[in-house]
């Protein structure tokens, strides 16, 4: 029975962690959804919103993100712009 209790407690501890992911991101925190596609399950962004969000995060700069993180965000921005370009691409 002890084992069951430990398992239940562990599960609660993990649930608490995932709740933290879903919480709003403020100015001093990293946006893990943009950065690493974590904790995005409740978010549905249009591609324009996504581009706006990434730009906001990039503007936070080195106060919040490491150089490696910023590089990742730049890559995400490129990906988002590519999606928009692909959707709008003219021709047959």
């Amino acid at each position: 029975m002890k084992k069951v209790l430990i398992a239940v407690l562990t599960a609660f501890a993990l649930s608490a962690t995932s709740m933290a992911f879903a919480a709003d991101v403020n100015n001093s925190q990293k946006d893990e959804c943009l950065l690493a596609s974590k904790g995005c399950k409740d978010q549905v962004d249009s591609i324009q919103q996504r581009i706006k969000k990434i730009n906001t995060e990039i503007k936070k700069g080195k106060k919040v993100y490491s150089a490696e993180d910023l590089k990742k965000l730049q890559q995400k921005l490129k990906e988002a712009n590519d999606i928009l370009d692909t959707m709008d691409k003219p021709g047959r």
Partner: protein
Amino acid sequence: MKRRNVLAALALLGMTAAATTPAMALENEFHGMFQAQYINSNFNGANTTAFPANTAAGFAPPTYGGDSQYVPFGLPKHVYSANFIEQRARIGYTAKASSDLKLVTRFELDYAYWGDSSYGTHRNHGAAIGADQVNIETKNIYLDANIFKDVNMRLGMMPYNDSFKSIMFDADMAGIAFSSSYNKFTPTVGFFRFNDTGAAKDNTLGHLTNDLFVLDGKYEATKDLKVGAAYYFFRNDAITTNSNDISILDQQQDVKLHALGLNAEYVSGPLTLNGFGILEVGTVNTRATTAWALNAGAKYKVGPGTAHAEFLYVSGDSGTTGHSNAFYAVFNNVGTAEHGYYDNEMVILGRDKNAMTTDNSIIATAGNFGQGQIGGYIGYELPLTDRLTSAANAGFAAVAKDNKAFTGTAHKSNYLGTEINAEANYKLLENLTGGVRVAYVFLGDYYKGVALGGETPVNPYDAKIIFKYTF
């Protein structure tokens, strides 16, 4: 197992699953667009863009609003103007397992024009009463994975374009591409298979193919200067209509062409300069070929808006035999032109950024039927309010060499024409835009006397009212 132990095991399994779920969860990304536009034109959807060679070869008349190329040759000076509405929707779904692994899919549903057909099976159709058309198109299915640190792999049917403003290729193509990033250097290597005609010809796959090999590198020399180089090898041994000459319908192709290009972009305050040069050397269907293209572009933030200018020269050839200077792109056949030069912001002279299934131009391919092209383009974009933007452009274009295309005789001049166009777009809702774009071309003497009875065709125009939603 005792009941208590079974419960304990189930609880453990359940908890493990619950604990695992957040880490395993997919990020589901949906994106898409919808565009519907009303077109009034004596160009798009009119007789002047229905390719006569197709009719002569026994093909049915165009089932879309034109066959890609402006061909007023031998037609009455005045043609009826067209009035129609075309529509497009695109849906994209991406399944992201993590930031390092995703499956990308994209689909397209087009109506060439309202009223085209219904109840059948026909891509780009289905807008006649009753609808119920089988018409969904699969554009992309590919895996995008960061398989090692700093190594990205794309595998499958993906969008891919050249590093030269898409004048050589810009299409959905099946292949594999690896790209990386070492500090300021970004190399890419890729292989793409355009066609494999073996199955239909001799039941053997892999030898009657049309392939592309890519080596591309970009280097950020300074914060303001980016330079790049690319090598493409085009090898076409397919037996196909999808290649170089609209008059050759089913023939063994023989293309072995090396293309080497350099590109650069320099930013200095409000000014951005960019450009490229490409040299092609090899064989294109028994003709030894040396061809080249040069481009320069500039953008300058002036006043409340942005001015831009573009110049493009593509070599041409006046003959049809012997050594050739005709430029090769994917492909030179206008019906299968999987490339496009959009930076000039033209509507009629060049390919239109708003074109969907109806996609016609005076210069529809980079090679321009072996004639090449010389073009200068200027424009100004002016945001008027937060919601309203406007732009105006002018373009001047000629063929580089007259090879008697379309008429069989020398044209009166190499000058194709001068285009002026203007547009205004209003943001109706966050992602929905309503816009108007009009264009008019003063035809050059290239077209002098080419209409029926030696008359000159009237100048082409095009007007669009566009609604566009992207999400």
